[in-house]
């Protein structure tokens, strides 16, 4: 099997609310998997469980056969499982170059190099420019991240897991709050990334055009449960999915 990530019966509740209820999914290497569902379906909670932001109540997560359940976030990240957040999350006072440089310092485990000049590490510099080039930010390398335009911030946000050398990228609503043009640009960036860099991607999304344009497979969550799983065409015609999104037809 070419499986890269498997969850087995993940459960998480907040008080009486079962946010994630017995979710088992399996993602294969190189796949682009969309996780969709109405607001409050548990998509972000599922991401939080996989990446260690929240502790699971029950169930297990395996990455490449290794149990990563409840590991602290930094350990999961250093196994190359890297996520982005629904709200853009950068290092605002640092420049684009420095944002990615920090990430590469961590990836190359040089955080404890305390006396060398950070900007003098030639291999890191080359890699930072390669990633900046890929996301179209090379000419803004010395602009502080906090001063970028919204679209550029989003590009940098996605460049961070890329610079981490992610094998599995979890993108939480990569097109949230973007104009149609920006959405188009991010969509093509994501599909370019997964083909060029051979990254497996799991993403949540509300824009169905984006979902059908790039996802290989869909998982539909509703009230914390998986209600459908499969190829986009199959899921689109699934009755339960239509019901979850549109409600039961009352007047037939």
């Amino acid at each position: 099997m070419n499986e890269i990530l498997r969850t087995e019966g993940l459960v998480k509740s907040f008080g009486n609310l079962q946010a994630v209820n017995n979710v088992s999914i399996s993602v294969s290497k190189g796949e682009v998997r969309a996780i969709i569902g109405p607001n409050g379906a548990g998509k972000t909670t599922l991401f939080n469980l996989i990446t260690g932001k929240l502790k699971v109540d029950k169930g297990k997560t395996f990455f490449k056969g290794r149990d990563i359940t409840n590991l602290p976030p930094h350990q999961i990240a250093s196994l190359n499982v890297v996520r982005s957040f629904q709200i853009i999350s950068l290092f605002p006072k640092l420049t684009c170059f420095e944002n990615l440089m920090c990430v590469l310092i961590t990836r190359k485990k040089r955080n404890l190099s305390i006396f060398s000049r950070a900007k003098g590490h030639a291999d890191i510099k080359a890699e930072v420019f390669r990633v900046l080039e890929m996301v179209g930010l090379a000419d803004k390398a010395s602009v502080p991240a906090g001063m970028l335009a919204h679209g550029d911030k989003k590009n940098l946000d996605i460049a961070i897991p890329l610079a981490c050398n992610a094998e599995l990228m979890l993108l939480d609503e990569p097109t949230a709050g973007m104009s149609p043009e920006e959405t188009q640009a991010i969509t093509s960036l994501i599909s370019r990334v997964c083909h060029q860099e051979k990254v497996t991607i799991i993403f949540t999304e509300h824009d169905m055009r984006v979902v059908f344009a790039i996802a290989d497979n869909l998982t539909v969550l509703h009230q914390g449960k998986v209600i459908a799983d499969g190829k986009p065409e199959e899921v689109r015609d699934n009755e339960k999915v239509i019901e979850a999104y549109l409600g039961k037809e009352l007047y037939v």
Partner: protein
Amino acid sequence: MPCRSSQINLSVTILLAAGVMFLFALPAFLSRFYIYLFSGIFIMTLFAYGFHLLFTYAGYISFGHAAFYAVGAYTVALMYKHVSDSVWLAFLMALATSAFIGAIIGALSVRLNKIYFAFLTLGFGQLVYTVIFRWRSFTGGDDGIPGVMRGTLDFGFFQLSLKPLVNYYYFTLVIFLLCIFVLWRIVNSPFGYTLMSIRDNQERSSFTGVNVLKYAWLAFVISSMVTGLAGALMVSLCGMAYPELSFWSSSADPILATLIGGAFTFSGPFVGSACYVLMKSYLMSTIGNWAIALGLILLVLVLFFRSGIMGFFSQRFKVML
């Protein structure tokens, strides 16, 4: 603009070299009072740099750094009193004790951040104060330890007494310059940038694989060592260790000096400490109740120069100072 930035680099280097030469030449034309005052500036600057590393680079605001200042001071005082007059031994011991206390307080404090961290460090600072104040048999209680000497520097082939004020001035200056050089390297190193990523966005940093607690803790330990060194230098300069060194109001000195100079610049703590010490000394001798003047100056700062003196110049000339 490579040309312009290299010109700026050149002029900054020349300025720095001139500044260092000026500091070395100072005792030749200044009175004892000013030699004493300038030593005080160097010490306050180191104290401020200890706070600054943790605040500006890692994003943790400590209200308890006076604890490490006092630990450094008392260690040197006790070493000279009970063990030997070796400066090396006393200062190494001061570094070790401030690192040790810093490691314990740091491990307990960096788990929290923002205001909670500030209050926790304030609490630990007061704890250290209480221990120093109450442990009369060891620390002298509220009498402190008077008559601290200045020790002897043993180079093997010759020995230099630090008793003359000019010798002590040069000793302080050398340690001050060394520390600034080391800190400059640290904040521009991969470790420094790891701290800045923690400062800017702790969550994102940990989700790229940074063990935030570990690096914040390390920054805390380095910061306490620099602060402890400042205390060690101070106690020999003024010749007395007293419990108020560790009182919470003493923790405010490096914060004020850093803010006056410009928290988000590297040179801020130096410029700020120089202004702070000179101002304090001038105002104390002229109007007595200098806190009133300090309050007014802080008001002007907060209203018009929020980024501090060097922050203002940095923005004006678009260079990081």
